[in-house]
């Protein structure tokens, strides 16, 4: 899946698959914090512009 995204031009780092068990609260918080930071580094998704552009918003 990540490889397909990459091939299509979407950063594979935008998809994160992690195993977090029910006993791992701290790990969950850490994983989310890291992931959000990673996405911040990557910047907004280029696909985001389409649905959120003012023109598109008007149509919706």
């Amino acid at each position, binding site marked *: *899946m990540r*490889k397909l995204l*990459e*091939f*299509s*031009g*979407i950063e594979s780092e935008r998809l994160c698959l992690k195993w977090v068990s029910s006993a791992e609260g701290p790990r969950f918080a850490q994983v989310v914090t890291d992931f959000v930071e990673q996405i911040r580094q990557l910047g907004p998704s*280029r696909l985001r512009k389409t649905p959120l552009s003012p023109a598109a918003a008007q149509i919706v």
Partner: protein
Amino acid sequence: MIEQIRDHVKALFRDGKIAAFLGLKDEQGSIVPHLFSTAEELDNGLSIGVGATNTERYPLASLLMTLLTGYPDKTFGVLVRGCDERALYELIRWNQAATAAERIVKVGFACPKELAEAHECRKPFPDVSVAGDKTEPVPYARVRHVEALELPARLNYWLSEFDRCIKCYGCRNVCPVCFCNVCTLEDDVLTKTGDLPPENPMFHLTRAIHMAGRCIDCNLCTEACPAEIPLRTLYKRVAEIIEEEFGYVTGSPDSGKSPLNILGPPPGHTSAND
């Protein structure tokens, strides 16, 4: 080559091995799929396509499925190229003809070198072959071209390709391994039907994902696409990913279960306490 095939099929008819033969026929210059029901009929227009780079290829494998279901006690001969045979292997694996596998008699032939090159075919000959000389597989280079692009350029490339889509579903309809009765791509909840262009890249990536572990790389989709979207390039990469990740090659006779149908720990996985 055509003579060898004709003689071979005639022998099948004579020995009572097949009830009919699904092949190609020259109908006043246009080559179309045809079900030959007698040996004599073979003298009249049996064809394997015209010219070395002909485009008269059809998803014979999926036509055969319809025949097998419609005539549950008949055995059919079928003309197969390398790609048709791969489609048959895959359809059998997906239980579309699993119980009917013994009612399929393959009459294979190797494609000429020029055709193999025109389609950059990964295996231009079937395992079961009665005519034609095997030629070398031809590598497919388009995937690497796309990979050479920077990520933003890749996305733009695909979006510009995908946005030409007119949603004719030709890629799906011609696909020999698309066997679903209903298609996710026509599911209103996933992607509004009737909207043009479709929601991209999701629309085409969804189909690409459904091709994972199924696409047998026949190139019919790209040929069929009126908007000339290089769909095969996408599916080719998907097939590569499946091979890289699971060591699974579609359209081979003995790859076992599709890797996408295995859930849970791989063999050899142990519980955490031992």
